């Protein structure tokens, strides 16, 4: 009888080796251990005709064979399932190097980027951001700023007039006057905004540009406070290694006045193309608020003193981003605008 078992086992091994697809595994199971027509099922039924002793022996052998066959088929099916799943996933393969789905990012204007940075620094230093009109009277644009009656800046060559009395402001210093008229000292003001001068556009000029004006009025304010404030600003703006120097200069609304230079953010002061070899970059004008300006807005210069400073954003923009032609700033070419962050 055991020969019969060996024969069955060999036959199954042959069948098993011949299976090539998952369906074959199911057919194999039906053929060998299927409830109705399975080969082993038929063999089991035949056991009834054997003597009890032999039935027990053969039954055991058949059961062992059946367990082995079922395990082999399960193993085979499992392998097919794994292969099927793997093939399925392989078929779902995508090209992960294809671009992601998103909107093209828009960008802020470089002037806005710089203005916001500067505002953030000064707000953290206790300054209030203020705004003023772009169209001003001669009083705010010149008289209140102590600009002499015959000063060239007042001429129609230099300033855009809209009428006898009204002009496009030629400096954000006008906001100083509005701020001091509105509020009592102590005050700390930063005024960014557009200003206008009758310059024909070229690589370094536009008839419109942006300035940031600073003003601080309090008791006991000195040139040293101005220097310390500017130093703090440039170090936050350009890095802690930045140096500044003050040169005497003239602006009608300050006295004493100073031009501020800061050490080049590119080369650190050794001289490069950005700073034209000097190691220094001009930041802008500054000084102690002129007593005539203070008196004009009803502040007693013997009790209060203050400093003011101004810087040009367009030039700063050109230096920081390496612009060779500032006309690009107001052409709104998206190939230009998309470059800044």
């Amino acid at each position, binding site marked *: 009888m055991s020969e019969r078992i060996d024969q069955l086992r060999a036959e199954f091994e042959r069948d098993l080796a011949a299976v090539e697809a998952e369906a074959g595994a199911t057919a194999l199971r039906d053929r060998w251990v299927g409830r109705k027509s399975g080969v082993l099922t038929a063999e089991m039924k035949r056991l009834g005709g054997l003597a009890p002793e032999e039935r027990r022996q053969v039954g055991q052998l058949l059961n062992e064979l059946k367990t082995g066959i079922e395990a082999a088929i399960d193993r085979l099916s499992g392998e097919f399932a794994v292969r099927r799943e793997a093939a399925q996933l392989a078929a779902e393969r995508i090209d992960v190097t294809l*671009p992601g*789905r*998103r*909107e093209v*990012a*828009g*960008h*802020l*204007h470089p002037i*806005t980027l710089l203005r*916001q940075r500067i505002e953030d620094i000064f*707000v*953290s*230093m*206790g*300054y209030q*951001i203020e705004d003023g009109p*772009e*169209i001003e*009277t001669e009083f705010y644009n010149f008289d209140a700023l102590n600009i002499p009656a015959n*000063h060239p800046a007042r*001429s*129609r*060559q230099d300033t*855009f*007039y*809209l*009428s006898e009395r*009204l002009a*496009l402001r030629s400096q954000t210093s006008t906001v100083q006057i509005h701020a001091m008229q509105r509020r009592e000292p*102590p005050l700390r003001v930063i005024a960014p905004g557009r200003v*206008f001068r009758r310059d*024909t556009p070229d690589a370094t000029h536009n008839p*419109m540009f942006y300035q940031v004006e600073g003003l601080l009025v*309090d008791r006991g304010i*000195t*040139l*040293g*406070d101005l*220097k*310390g*404030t500017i*130093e703090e600003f440039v170090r936050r703006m350009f890095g802690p290694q930045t140096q500044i*120097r003050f*040169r*005497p*200069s*003239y602006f009608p609304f300050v*006295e*004493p*006045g*100073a031009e501020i230079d800061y050490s080049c953010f590119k080369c650190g002061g050794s001289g490069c193309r950005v700073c034209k070899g000097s190691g220094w970059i001009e930041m802008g004008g500054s000084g*102690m608020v002129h007593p005539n300006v203070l008196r004009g807005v009803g502040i007693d210069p013997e009790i209060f*003193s203050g400093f003011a400073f101004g810087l040009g954003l367009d030039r700063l923009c050109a230096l920081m981003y390496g612009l060779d032609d500032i006309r690009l*700033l*107001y*052409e*709104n070419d*998206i190939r230009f*605008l998309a470059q800044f962050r």
Partner: protein
Amino acid sequence: MKISYNWLREMVETRLTPRDLATRLTMAGLAVDAVEAVGDDHVLEFDLTSNRPDCLSHLGVAREVAALEGIGLVRPSTNLAAVATKTIELTAVEVLSPELCPRYTARLIRGVRIGPSPEWLVRRLEALGQRSVNNVADITNYVMLETGQPLHAFDFHQLRGRRIVVRRAHVGEQMTTLDGELRDLTPEMLVIADAERAVAIGGIKGGEDSGISAETVDVLLEAASFVPGQIRQTSRALGLATEASYRFERGVDPLGVLDAADRACTLIVAIAGGEVLDVAIDVFPGEAALRAAENPIPFRAERYRALTGLSVDIGEASRILGMLGCRVLPGADGESLSAVAPTWRIDIRIEEDLIEEVARIAGYDLLQTTLPGSAGAGAYLAGEEDRRAIRRLLTNAGYHEAVSFSFVNVGLDALFSTVDESQRMLLLDPIDETQSHMRTTLLGGLFRALEHNFNHGSRNVRLFEIGKCFIGHEGEDGRPREVERLAIAATGARHELDWQNSSARLDFFDLKGVVESLNEALGLPPFGFRSIGVDSHHPALYPGRLYPGWLHPGRAAEILLGGRPVGQLGQLHPHIAGQGRMKQAVLLAEIDLAALLNSTRPESRYHPLPKFPAVVRDQAFLIETSVSCDSIISAVRDLNLPNLVDVRLFDIYAGRELPAGSHSLALTFIYRADDRTLTDEEVSAAQERIVACLRNAFNAELR
């Protein structure tokens, strides 16, 4: 302005090299832009501030160097031999316009030989960019560069009547200047005339037929002072700027006039020969006013400390001011002084000016760095948080920020604006005649930017700008209202980077979505939208308001906030798009930013999360296309069904099998009660009411 290092050293023996001197002067307020080696000399190129005309000469700069280094100053020498004949015997000077000419002096030099200048003189002038003409003319230039006093030499025998009259030009008077140009003069201009005619434009340029020529034997040398304002105006009016006008319009010391004349006479005699008649004619009507202006200015050590943060020794301050030419009077307390500024320092008038002088000569590098004590918290401009939120939202949505000029082409502006001509502001002297009006809308600038981008090959363009527009003249002193606006423009691909949807183009609803999301970003209640196109531009419907003709009449909406119009949104009219050669749809919106920033925001309040599930019903209606989605949803809302919590559009279908002029609107209705799960019957009853309502109101059929 150029200064020769060697020439400077004739007056002050500086210990500094040309480069070190340039740095020293720069740090003292006389900015040197460049140092250039010329032969055995160095030329320093200055960029002087307008308050320091006293330094427009070698003598002026030498004075600064002497003060900075604490060393002596040697003035240019004069040496005139005694001559028996007096100037007054041969000529006369009459100043008829003392208000324009505070001082006029004349000297006569007889028997000069006009010829080329000696080589040293030619070289010196050329090093400073001046061309040599002849010996006498060169000497007048040389002395101007040396002392800062412009001079003019007349051929004495060309002066009719042998006299000088300083007067205003006559109406219609003309004169040919040395450059050969015939000049039309006006009575606002000052001329130097002889007995008959103008022979020079005072302080600006000499006349052609009274100048020095090879035949000149006797020279009348003019050294005078002129009022700066008149020189500036005349120079501008004639378009004629000269070395002389440059100096006079900034201010020349009236007390240096005679020294300069004597110095020039000394050089003329030495180089061109001749003799100088005795005693210059000196008409000085401005002398009294000049003397009256010489007031002692106080200087307190305490005030110095208060403004600079530095202490000062009053003796040191006195020494510095003295070196600069001030007459210093000591104060009684040893902690103050007073100083009379020299007449060449027109910029020194008050104590703060003296403080700057002492501080800059002592050196600004002595300044300490201190920080002012705290005085309260900083703050952004009102609304800045919202502006930043808007900028963030729009850049995230793919919009680049544009910045355009505040002045524009009026034709372009008018295309996008309903502002009346009388409400516009225009520049009197624009740089570009075509850009002469203040903008009344931001859309003109954005349209121009779209065109620019199109012309440079960019077809997918999204831009926004935040800025001011200028309308009317009702403000103080005739100022316009400056209105802050937000404008948005978009055209091209809807999803530029999406390779699976590359053909989709932006349309009205893309920009509307952006506008709607502004509310979310700012925490405002939702905008309303009202068609302002074909069905509403009738004046009876919108009295006093103009239909925005720049928009497509079927695709234009007014943006409402709290029921009030705050802007417009729509597709650019194809006619205008065509002008910019844009064939694709261009979407535009402009919103009054102040209305957004100033509107009150509903506070965020917590609502308990629902405890019972919602019942959702979708239903499609066949309805005429002229019925707006808004009116349907409003009609449903107005039923006030107790458990209907939301209704919204989820699909529109317009197939050919539908009746013409109709489409199918699919709506989602969401029902929920707070206290129980709703039954099917309850919801169906509500739906029936909706169906009936829409049938009655809009003839809508259930599909």
